[in-house]
Structure formats: C-alpha cells, structure tokens
C-alpha cells in the first residue's frame, strides 16, 4: 500500500496532466458504455413487457402515419358510436395515460390521471404494495370510484382515503376512494418506443367501464382509440372496425397482428441494437487506443523512475500490482462521477416536477442504472486489463540499462 501511494504521489501525479488526460479518456469510455448499457437494458425491459401482447388474436391499433388526421372535425356522438360498436362486438384493452391535474400532494407534483379498462388492467398486472386491486363494477355517479394511487401519493392519500375532485375527462365532480397503492417505480413502456418509460409514482389509475366511457369527453375517447388493443379477434374483424372508424371519424388506423408486430419489433429492435452496439464498439476501440497511447507516453516520460525502482529491488509482478491499483483508483473515481451524474439526473426530474419521470431508488438510482453501472464495471475490468498488460509488456521490452541511462 505504501509503495502504491509512493508511486501515485511521487511518479504519476508529478505529471498530473497525463493522469488528467487518462481520467478524461476513461470517463468518455465509461460514459459511452453506460449510455449503451442503459439503452439496451431499457429496450429489453420494454420488449419483455410488450411480449404479453404478442399473442394469437391480439391486434394493436396504430394511427396510420401516412394519413392526414383532422381531429377538429371529430364530434362526441361519432366517437360514442364507435365505442358502442366496440362494446357490442369486441373485447378490447383501453388505456389512456397522462391527463394532468393539480391535486394537492406532499411533493407538489402534478398528478397524472390514467384511465384503464378491465382488460388492459389484466394485461398490465400491476403489483401493489398496499391495499387491494380495483374492481370495475361500480356505478358511475352513484358510488365512489375505486382507484389505485402511485407510491408517491401513498402518504397523502393512504388506502381508504377519499378524494373529491373534478375529473379531467368527464368534467364532473367525482368521489374517488383509494383501494390500493402501486409498487414504487411501477411503469409502462411505450408501444413504439420501448426504451422510453412512463413512471406511475404520481399517477392515479381510474377504472373505466362502459358507463364511464359514455360520460367521458372527446379527449378520452380519441386518446383511448390511439393505443387500443383488440383481444381474441381476427383480421376480418379488425378490417370491419378499421372501416367503421374511417367512416365515422375519418381516421385511418392500422391493426397489426401478432406476427406483423413480432416481425416489426424484431426488425426494429435488433437493427437498432446492432447499430448502437457497433457504434459503441468502434468508440470504445478508439478511446482505448487513445488511452493506450497516453499510457505509452507516460512510460516514455516515467521510464527513468520505473527503472530506478526496478534496480533497487522492485519486481515486475509488484509493478503490475501497482498499475492495477492505480487503474483501480482511476476507475473508482470515474465510476463515482458517473454515479453522481446519474443520481443528479434522476433527482433533476424531482426538481423540475416531472411527475412521469420521477423515480424512487437507493441514492436516486433505479435498478436499471445499477445494472448499467455493473456492466460498465465489467467493461472497465477489460479495459484496465488490456492497458496494464500492454504497459507491463512495454516496460519489460525496455532494457534496464537504457532506462538508467535516461
């Protein structure tokens, strides 16, 4: 330990510019691998969530990106007709997220109201930390509406408490009763961007039944249609619905079945991840080459010190241990900085009151970040091993006499 301190303070830090250059290069390498690891893990998580939809008879609606949609022309009685048609002929999962309302809470966050029907609720399989699951058989306007609240609202609105509020989609005063609290960081990945997630820590889930849909406004109707999922259906049935929607609302929808979705996702994910991995690999190679160049330069300048120490009894294996120790310290500093930046990023969502991104975690980091840091640590081991072994080989190739002469 003493010899490591001696080498760091008397030899390496004497040329601190080289150490700083090294830290910067290694930091870039770590940042690139961290971003990649996070992208891949997040995409993979999203993919796993969406796999529940890759089932026979499941069709996901998608507004045709090539069509022109005129939402101003849509009237409420037309959307009501579409929902009536849906209720009579199909089993469908409906979930409309992100109707932001101001509701008093401990963290002063805006609260998002999410509307979910029974089928969508079954698909999502939310886990609760307290309370019970919600039921969908309540009578709208006559009974209290059972709801789930996000973990961030649990203290202000514990299980059993009531909330009286003007509902953003029905514009009516409703009485909500908290039935359960979602687990921390409950989230849902976007259908078509599986790496982006919406967190439900400051959300309220409101069960939607036919009665509720009939009372709701145009916003919920149109929003709900955008991501609607037909269950136990056939291609012919979806074509009927597609025509019906086109006829009544003038919106062109596509309904993709399991195989089409699977092919699309497979192509999309695999290609995107391949490109990301290739970019990262190339960047890492370049950065490691630069870091090696930096180390070789350091050896050129420090060879005198190394050889003098080798002459007075330092063995190559000890020198190797010193280098591993030195790089271990460098990587620890860099990982600590990376950790700090990530924690600050997560915390900044709380500061900015970004309720759909605010997350709970140890030191502000969620499991995704920890896993990515672990992968970075593994990559650091490989980089460290490569550089140290190259360095030792270089030092060994310089005869001691040449070093002393310098």
């Amino acid at each position: 330990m003493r010899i490591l301190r001696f080498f760091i303070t008397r030899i390496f830090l004497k040329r601190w510019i080289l150490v700083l250059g090294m830290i910067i290069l290694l930091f870039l390498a770590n940042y690139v691998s961290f971003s990649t690891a996070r992208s891949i893990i997040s995409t993979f998580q999203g993919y796993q969530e969406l796999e529940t939809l890759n089932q026979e008879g499941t069709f996901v609606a998608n507004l045709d990106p090539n069509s022109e949609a005129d939402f101003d022309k849509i009237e409420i009685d037309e959307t009501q007709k579409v929902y009536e048609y849906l209720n009579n002929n199909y089993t469908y999962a409906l979930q409309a997220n992100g109707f932001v309302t101001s509701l008093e809470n401990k963290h002063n966050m805006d609260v998002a109201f999410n509307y979910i029907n029974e089928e969508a609720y079954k698909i999502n399989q939310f886990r609760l930390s307290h309370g019970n699951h919600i039921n969908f058989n309540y009578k709208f306007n006559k009974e209290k509406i059972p709801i789930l609240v996000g973990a961030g609202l649990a203290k202000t609105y514990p299980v059993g408490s009531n909330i009286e509020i003007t509902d953003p989609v029905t514009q009516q005063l409703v009485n909500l009763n908290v039935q359960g609290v979602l687990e921390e960081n409950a989230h849902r990945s976007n259908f078509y961007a599986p790496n982006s997630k919406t967190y439900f820590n400051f959300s309220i889930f409101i069960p939607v039944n036919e009665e509720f849909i009939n009372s709701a406004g145009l916003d919920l109707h149109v929003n709900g249609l955008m991501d609607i999922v037909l269950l136990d259906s056939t291609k012919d049935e979806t074509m009927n619905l597609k025509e019906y929607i086109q006829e009544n609302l003038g919106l062109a929808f596509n309904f993709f079945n399991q195989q089409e979705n699977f092919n699309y996702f497979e192509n999309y994910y695999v290609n995107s991840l391949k490109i990301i991995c290739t970019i990262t690999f190339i960047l890492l190679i370049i950065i490691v080459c630069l870091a090696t160049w930096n180390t070789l330069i350091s050896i050129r300048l420090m060879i005198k010190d190394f050889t003098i120490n080798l002459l007075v009894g330092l063995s190559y294996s000890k020198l190797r241990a010193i280098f591993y120790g030195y790089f271990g310290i460098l990587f620890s500093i860099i990982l600590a900085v990376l950790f700090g930046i990530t924690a600050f990023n997560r915390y900044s969502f709380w500061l900015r009151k970004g309720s759909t991104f605010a997350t709970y975690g140890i030191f502000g980091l969620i499991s995704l970040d920890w896993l990515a840091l672990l992968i970075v640590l593994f990559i650091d081991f490989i980089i460290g091993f490569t550089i140290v072994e190259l360095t030792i080989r270089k030092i060994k190739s310089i005869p001691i006499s040449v070093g002393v002469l310098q």
Partner: protein
Amino acid sequence: MKYSLFRFIDVFEAIASYLICFATNLIFIYVQTLNLEGFSILKSFLESMIDYQLIINIFLTSIIIVFHYQFLNRRKTEIFCRILVGDTMVNIIIRYILNSLAILMFSFLLSLSLNFYLELNVTSNLYLVFIFIIYILISAGRVKKE
C-alpha cells in the same frame, strides 16, 4: 520545417490527434442533420451523447494538451544541446509556435475534406482551431531546457 523540434513521428501523432478531434466534432454535427424519425431507440441513444456534445469535444481536446506536454518534456535535452551550439531560446520558441501552427493548419485543411464529404459548413471546426491555438501559445511558455 528546418531546424524543427518535430520529427516525422511527432508530426504524424499531432495530425492524428487533431483529426480525431475535428472528426468527432463533425460527426456530432452530421448526426444531427440525419432524420431519425421512427428510430426512437437509436435517436435517444445518440441524444444522450449529442446533449453533451460540447463537453465531449472539449474533453477530447485534452489529447492535444497531452501531446504538447509530453513533446516538450521529451525535447528538453535537445533544446539544451541546441542552445549549446549557438541557437537561442527565442528562436526555438518562435520556430515551435510556427511549426505547431503549420501542423494545425494542415490538419484543419485535411479535415475540410470531411466537411465537404458530409456537406457541412466549413466553419464548424473553427472554434476548435481557436482552442488549439490557445493550447499552442500556452505550451510555448513551457519550452524549457533541461
């Protein structure tokens, strides 16, 4: 490059370092001109780097600092010998600045070919040139004999 402190290998190292910095900056700018609608995974990955584009570029210029630092350290004995045979410190410093600037300009002109290939504005790398000139001037103060 008569009486220059730079050997071929040093010129090569310097040009390579400058080109890495210039190319990184240009690639960042080029990626932003690409239309990545519909490639959200790729887009958000690239954005995680583009957001810190300036910091990454400036971080990368540290390799130029490292280059100048190690170069001048290794040339201390040579400078001492040159002064012994009648050269002056002022002349050595002026030659060092001029040679460094020449290498920088050559690298910048080389990087322009990438500018033209990617159809980017020729002024995109100028701020880096400015930073590098400052580095050269600062390092000129560190030209010392042993």
